[in-house]
């Protein structure tokens, strides 16, 4: 075998083992009152604040911070949650560096931006995890909406609709509600218990969630359409498809999202292992960082292009490097070798031709000795299921086509979240749910007059 040197980017020479506690990289979301007050008082209270404009759900950041600085946690939670019902998880999983905190004007003063994420976690904690309902729930309208998928989009639309007095039933095939918040967020950002506790808050508002129910098999779509006046589809994306290379059936090769879920429920053990993650997006970075934090001996992130082309956020990439993840750029997997379990990942080098096409360079094969291979090369669309919904159309990328109100081609079906945008942040899914809920409410009002 022709072994060549792979282009690598790593801090591992400086940091022999990933021993840095995650808290040193991303402060724990919880704050003491003293800490929160110091931080809240730093806020300049900008007019038409850039942080609010940067938030996909337009949380009024200066106003919720003002409530914290004046000791009013109920008011703070209400300010946050009225814009974003999943404010507690967004406080933990949002890429704040790209959103609110990145927009903070203090950056331009060369000062640390306000820790909006942590303040938001602080400001929602009592209400969300204490299950105190800060909202007035409208009188029952007698109307019922069915929601497919108890992920962020479905929880958002459900919560907004029950606040308006409607009945909402969310169906989810998984044993636990929460979607990617429960199963797909790397543990170091938010643990499973926090995600599930937040769902409990949503149900305390009056949303009914039926887990372990697969729409299309456990309950037919016709039944669903008959039971509910309107239906919201928030089914997210599917699994990460196989790479289509030899050796993928070996033990130790798996979908990076399944791996993250297994770490969350404690069934995945990577301690002491050598792990290769394939991909360059956020899931790949998360799986790599989580592997390192879970005690992997060495973590490789194998990506067919360079650092600049990676889809992962710069701050997440930075964190992965700090955790000792070794980035292997311009490499693509050829095959996975091993007798029963994974032993080697064999890659070839890649390059761009003058016309910008990515090509594999012949004769550049090299092997990386690994015990586990995680594929994070993009989730599949749920086109099969979506095809069973009459009138619901998808685009060439398999994303559900909706209008600006998130209504699909079927005037009784709305959709939002990853199945519409192809896979973005929790906060984007929440906004979809908000927009759809408003439109569903108007449509129901118009149809009968509540």
């Amino acid at each position, binding site marked *: 075998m022709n072994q060549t040197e792979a282009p690598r980017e790593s801090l591992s020479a400086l940091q022999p083992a990933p021993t840095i506690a995650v808290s040193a990289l991303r402060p724990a979301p919880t704050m003491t009152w003293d800490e929160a*007050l110091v931080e809240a008082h730093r806020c300049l*209270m900008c*007019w*038409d604040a850039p942080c609010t*404009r940067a938030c996909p759900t337009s949380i009024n950041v200066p106003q919720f911070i003002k409530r914290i600085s004046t000791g009013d946690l109920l008011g703070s939670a209400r300010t946050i949650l009225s814009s974003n019902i999943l404010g507690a998880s967004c406080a933990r999983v949002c890429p704040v560096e790209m959103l609110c905190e990145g927009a903070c004007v203090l950056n*331009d003063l060369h000062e640390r931006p306000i820790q909006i994420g942590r303040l938001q976690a602080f400001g929602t904690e009592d209400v969300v995890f204490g299950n105190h309902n800060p909202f007035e729930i409208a009188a029952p309208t007698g109307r019922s909406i069915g929601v497919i998928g108890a992920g962020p989009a479905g929880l958002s639309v459900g919560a907004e609709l029950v606040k308006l007095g409607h009945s909402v039933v969310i169906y989810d095939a998984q044993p636990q509600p929460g979607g990617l918040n429960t199963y797909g967020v790397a543990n170091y950002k938010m643990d499973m218990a926090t995600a599930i506790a937040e769902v409990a808050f949503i149900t305390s508002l009056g949303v009914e969630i039926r887990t372990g129910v697969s729409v299309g098999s456990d309950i037919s779509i016709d039944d669903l359409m008959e039971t509910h006046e309107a239906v919201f589809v928030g089914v997210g994306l599917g699994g990460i498809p196989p790479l289509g290379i030899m050796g993928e059936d070996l033990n130790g090769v798996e979908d990076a999202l399944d791996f993250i879920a297994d770490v969350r429920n404690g069934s995945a053990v990577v301690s002491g292992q050598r792990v290769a993650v394939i991909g360059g997006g956020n899931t790949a970075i998360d799986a790599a960082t989580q592997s390192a934090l879970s005690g992997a001996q060495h973590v490789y992130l194998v990506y067919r292009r360079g650092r600049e082309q990676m889809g992962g956020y710069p701050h997440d990439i930075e964190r992965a490097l700090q955790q000792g993840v070794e980035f292997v750029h311009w490499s693509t997997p050829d095959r996975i070798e091993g007798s029963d379990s994974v032993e080697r990942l064999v890659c070839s080098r890649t390059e761009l031709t003058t016309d910008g096409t990515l090509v594999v360079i012949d004769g550049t094969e090299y092997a990386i000795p690994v015990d586990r291979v995680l594929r994070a090369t993009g989730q599949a669309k749920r086109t099969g299921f979506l095809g069973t919904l009459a009138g619901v159309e998808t685009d060439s990328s398999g994303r559900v086509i909706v209008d600006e109100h998130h209504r699909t081609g079927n005037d009784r079906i709305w959709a939002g979240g990853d199945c519409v945008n192809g896979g973005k942040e929790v906060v984007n899914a929440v906004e979809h749910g908000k927009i759809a809920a408003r439109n569903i409410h108007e449509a129901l009002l118009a149809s009968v007059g509540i």
Partner: protein
Amino acid sequence: MADLSVNICGIESPNPFWLASAPPTNTGDQIARAFDAGWGGAVWKTLGEPIENVYSRYSSVDINGSRMMGFSNIELITDRSLELNLIEIEEVKRRYPDNAVIVSLMVESDPDAWDTIIKQVEQAGADGIELNFGCPHGMSERGMGAAVGQVPEYTCDITTWAKSSATTPVFVKLTPNITDIRYAARAAKNGGADAVSLINTINSITGVDLDSFTPRPVVGDMSSHGGYCGPAVKPIALNMVASIAADPQTADLPISGIGGIGTWQDAAEYILLGATTIQVCTAVMHYGYRIVESMHEGLSNYLDGKGLSSVEELRGKSLERVTTWENLDINYVHKAEINQETCIGCALCYIACEDGAHQAIGVKATEDGKSEVWIKWDDCVGCNLCSLVCPVKDCITMVPQDVGATSMTWVEYSSDNPPGELYPRPKHGLTISS
């Protein structure tokens, strides 16, 4: 290096930084440590018939997380015996002959009582005495402190008694809880005072405990008004110091300035408005005696930078720049300018002007997610508000405009023969109609 030493009505002090009569000057040991730290003088915590205090004594006002912007106390005069204090005064003077030791006194309104205690503290070596006519709580209920300071005749009388007994200079400490401080200062001067110290503390309730409904400081389930001091009171005190220094009847009366001083800049401001020495309490109660170190160095560097060789040369320099409103130039025009290079786009100037002032700033959300702001030049009245709220140093400046208008005071303008035209100023017409 500028000379920091001062002489106030014959009392020499190595620098103008004194400790005010208060908890930091309660004991000889404290004052000794303060002198070691660099304080030039100290006014001994008020002596008199020893009292008993309540336990809970202090409360404060925090502003946006900054502690003790305002501070209040309901502590009374010394609770230590006169004998102990006299022994310690003597020992402190023996050890620190070059530092100024002034002893604050408060006794009942009886000439003999004043005569006795004045002779005792002078015997012990005090360089001067300060008559406490300012304490606004507790003692005033017993006919002392502010009860004296609030009545000019009493102030004059007791000052006269004290002067007839004292061989050292007599300072009268004035209460700000009056309508016009000049009357109190004139009364002190008429009584023969060698100097005045001001301000004493201001009557106050610092806040209310929103759970128990008890005002602060909480004493059990009750409270009582206290004496307010700290950074929040400095502007009030500066005005009173300037009024006395500018009053023809008291212009020659030396002043020891007190109120919210914690830095060399604060001290310099008092000196510029006529004070010879300054007294500090709250800042020391917050940070300890060590704050005097930076005060020393800062004032010295400042004087050097200004080409002044002594504190005395600085004293009163701002007084000629204080006048009455009617003598201000109503044709002085300045307008705000925003430095777009340093602007961070918080738009606080916009909302402050829009809601709080004269609607003279424009705003636009920009594509980079920030805000762009600009001055509507014709609408700007030059009020300064935007430059005050701007969090960026020197980003918004007030720039004098050469508009060619004749300099003119209100007095001149309203006279029969104004020297020129009133330069027009932006005004709103009808803004809302039915």
